[in-house]
């Protein structure tokens, strides 16, 4: 019984350590990668990628229009009154 418990604790520790390392690696990757957002995570980048892989240039108005459709005013966000007075 004791042996099983020790084994369980051992493997639990290994799992915890492994996950901690992964997070740490991911963190340093994000922190170190100065152009991380250029890889496509910015919302406006999705505008310019065609299915054929070409990258047409888009106007600033296109960015605005896509933003309006996607998120502007739709996500749950703190109200200004919770941060400021007028």
């Amino acid at each position, binding site marked *: 019984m004791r042996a099983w418990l020790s084994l369980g604790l051992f493997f639990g520790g290994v799992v915890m350590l492994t996950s901690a390392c992964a997070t740490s690696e991911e963190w340093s990757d994000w922190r170190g990668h100065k152009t991380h957002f250029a890889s496509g995570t910015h919302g406006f980048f999705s505008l310019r990628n065609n299915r054929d892989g070409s990258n047409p240039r888009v106007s600033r108005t296109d960015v605005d229009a896509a933003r309006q459709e996607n*998120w502007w005013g739709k996500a749950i966000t703190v109200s200004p009154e919770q941060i400021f007075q007028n």
Partner: protein
Amino acid sequence: MLRHRPRLLGGLLLTAALVVSGGVSHAAPEDALMPLEKYTTLKGKSLASAHRTRLLQFSEEIYNCMPWLAVYPAGLGFRPPRDSQDDDRYLSTWIYVDQREDAVFAALPQERRVSAMFSRYGVDMLRRMSALADVVDDSDVAGLSVVLSWLKPGTSRPGRQAVNETFSLFVDKATLRDFLAKRVSAEEFTNRAKFALFDGQNAVGRVPIEVWEDSFNSTYKATNVIPPKGAVCP
């Protein structure tokens, strides 16, 4: 006649829709400025009125040169913190960081996400705001404030309402000046600044943050976005 010409009718409706949507405001630079009538004190109104042109230029700079960011409507102005007893006016900018779901970012603990966002965008925005010398040197400006919102990872699933995380920070002018000039450490800067995190509409409060150098916002160029005509980006 139109009843027998469904394509023509469709075309007319589409044209009408485009005309109507063309009139909708897309958070243009002017919309970013807090309207004068919203200010509740003479001090606030005077500041907004005196520095309107400069704030509009600043808003245009963000709009034209940093399309990955957006200033919230009425997000740029002179406002006191919510809990302020006096009418201390902070030059404030509320920015939305346009970022989609990202596995690496999602794996970070919340306070790390805050640290990353503030280091990457908050510090640079404060630096840009502090460069508005004529505004910041106004004796009625108590300090500077930056508010950052971004999509909370894992909340933009179909059928669910997405949630934004928001970080707000207020700092006095002298501390910011010394921090940007490296006379005050990042640790001392965060000790002196007032800041809070919000998870959607829920106040999380003060979280432990780290601040480091990140040049992304000051060096990145969005080459595939055509800037509006006449826009000059440094």
